[in-house]
Every structure is written in structure tokens, then in C-alpha cells.
């Protein structure tokens, strides 16, 4: 609902401002498209990790968890590059309403990505011992973290066209 309220605010601001710019004229669509591919890939790697853990294959389960973590890192690096470019052009959150909503929505989404990465890192650090003693519990933790991660992916699926393409 937090993102729902922010999307609602975006609609209100955008439809009320006749000078609202189109995202593709200001933002980098290729970088955002690459980030979209990275996030949907990470959604697949996390369900594959869960699937292999259910099959009893910890090695492959951990491999896909690592890939998920790397996808998250890749996403944040690209986001940092985007932010860096905007800052170098003097485009900050206070520049106008467009950049205010852009930084707020993508920044909040980025924080969710970082939160997911922290949990994945913790799961990877504790995987060997946890899986050996409480296999079902560990597998369920991966599943629930994965559900959160899919939500992060879901939000980006809507942010991408709304901010970058329209």
C-alpha cells in the first residue's frame, strides 16, 4: 500500500502538470531495460534455489542464491550509475516534481532491494549448518524471502514503464 499511495501521488502530480516531461526524454531507457532483465532473472534464480533445496541439492540451491544476490548487486550498481549521471547533470530530487517522484520511488524500491540482499546474504552465510539440521525450516525461509523478492520485482515491473517509458 506504501507504493500504492506513491503511485497515486505520481498520477495526481503528473496529470495536474501540463509540463510534466516524458521519462524517455530524460532517463536512460537502455539502463532501465537492463535492470528489468536483471530483476526478472533474479526472480527466476530465487525460485530455482528454492526448487533445488526441496530436491535436497544444497550446492545448487546455494549457487542460485548467490546468483540472486549478484543480480541484486548488479541492479544497485546500475542504479548508482544512473543516479551518478543525473547528479552530474545537476538533476536532484529538489530540481522539480518529476525528479522528486523519480528519486523517491526508485530510491524506496532500491532500499527494498538492499533489504532483500541482506537477507539473502544471511541465508547464504548460515546455509550449511541450518540446512543440515533443519532442512525444511531453511527451505521455507528461502521461499518466504523469495516471495518478498518477487514483490520487489513486481513493483519494478510497474515503475519501469511509468517512470521511464511514458
Amino acid at each position, binding site marked *: *500500500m506504501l507504493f*500504492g*499511495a506513491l*503511485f*497515486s*501521488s505520481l*498520477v*495526481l502530480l503528473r*496529470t*495536474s*502538470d*501540463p*509540463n*510534466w*516531461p*516524458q521519462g*524517455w526524454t530524460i532517463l536512460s*531507457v537502455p539502463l532501465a*531495460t537492463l535492470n*528489468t*532483465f536483471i530483476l*526478472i*532473472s533474479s*526472480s*527466476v534464480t530465487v*525460485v*530455482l534455489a528454492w*526448487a533445488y533445496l*526441496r*530436491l*535436497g541439492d544444497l550446492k545448487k540451491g546455494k549457487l542460485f542464491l548467490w546468483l540472486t544476490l549478484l543480480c541484486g548487486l548488479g541492479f544497485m550498481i546500475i542504479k548508482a550509475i544512473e543516479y551518478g549521471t543525473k547528479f552530474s547533470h545537476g538533476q536532484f530530487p529538489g530540481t522539480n516534481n518529476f525528479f522528486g517522484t523519480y528519486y523517491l520511488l526508485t530510491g524506496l524500491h532500491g532500499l527494498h532491494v538492499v533489504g532483500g540482499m541482506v537477507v539473502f546474504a544471511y541465508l547464504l552465510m548460515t546455509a550449511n549448518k541450518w540446512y*543440515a*539440521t*533443519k*532442512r*525444511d525450516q531453511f527451505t*521455507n525461509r528461502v521461499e518466504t524471502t*523469495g*516471495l518478498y523478492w*518477487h*514483490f520487489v*520485482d*513486481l513493483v519494478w*515491473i*510497474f515503475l*519501469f*514503464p*511509468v517512470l521511464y*517509458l*511514458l
Partner: protein
Amino acid sequence: MTEDVVHEPQHHGHDNSPEAIRKEVRKYLAVFAALAALTIITVMIARLHLPGWQAVSLALLVASIKGGLVAAVFMHLISEKKLIYAVLALTVFFFGVLMWGPWHHRYDAIGQRNISAPPPEQMEGH
């Protein structure tokens, strides 16, 4: 203390047999391919630079299909309990209310634009 590791064929509503899991993996890969294709379609539609509401409608339609695939398959909503659907329906309702607010600000009940709002053609030139 070490606990016994027990393989449960049916655990939390999921079939944990190797055959079922391998079938799931194939389904996940197919959804990934669909999401990748739909992302390309989204970008191609944006490159057409369609006028205002056509562009918005198409972009949100494709995004909704992608979101639906993620929610239904990756988040297992396609095979959830009724309680989960009820909670989800409530969330969708409140999200709809949030979206209706700004829409109502701009348009009246029969789809005519409020006279106090700037005409959409002013926005399309930007």
C-alpha cells in the same frame, strides 16, 4: 542437538516429489522467457510514441500481464487458499481507491474532463 532430516512429499501445500519439482522448474523457465519477451514488447511499444492514453493503456496492460505472471507463478498465487485471495482482494480494493482519488480529481463520473483541469492535449506535446 541434531534433528532428523525428513523429506515430506506434501509440505505447505507443495508437492515435493522430484518429478513435480522438475516440472515446476520448466514452468519457471517458461515464465522467465515470457517476462523477457514482454519486456522487449514494452520497450517496442514505447518507441512507437503513441498518443497519451493509448501509450499509458498499452504500457500498463503489458505491465499487468507481467505482474500477473510473477504473482501467479513465482508467488504461487494461482494455487493459494481462499483466505489469501480474500486478503489480496482487500488490498486490490484499497489500491483501487488510491488510484480512483486522482482519477476522480481529473474526470467526473461520466468520463468527461473537469473544466478546472488543463486539457490533455497540452500535455502530449512534452
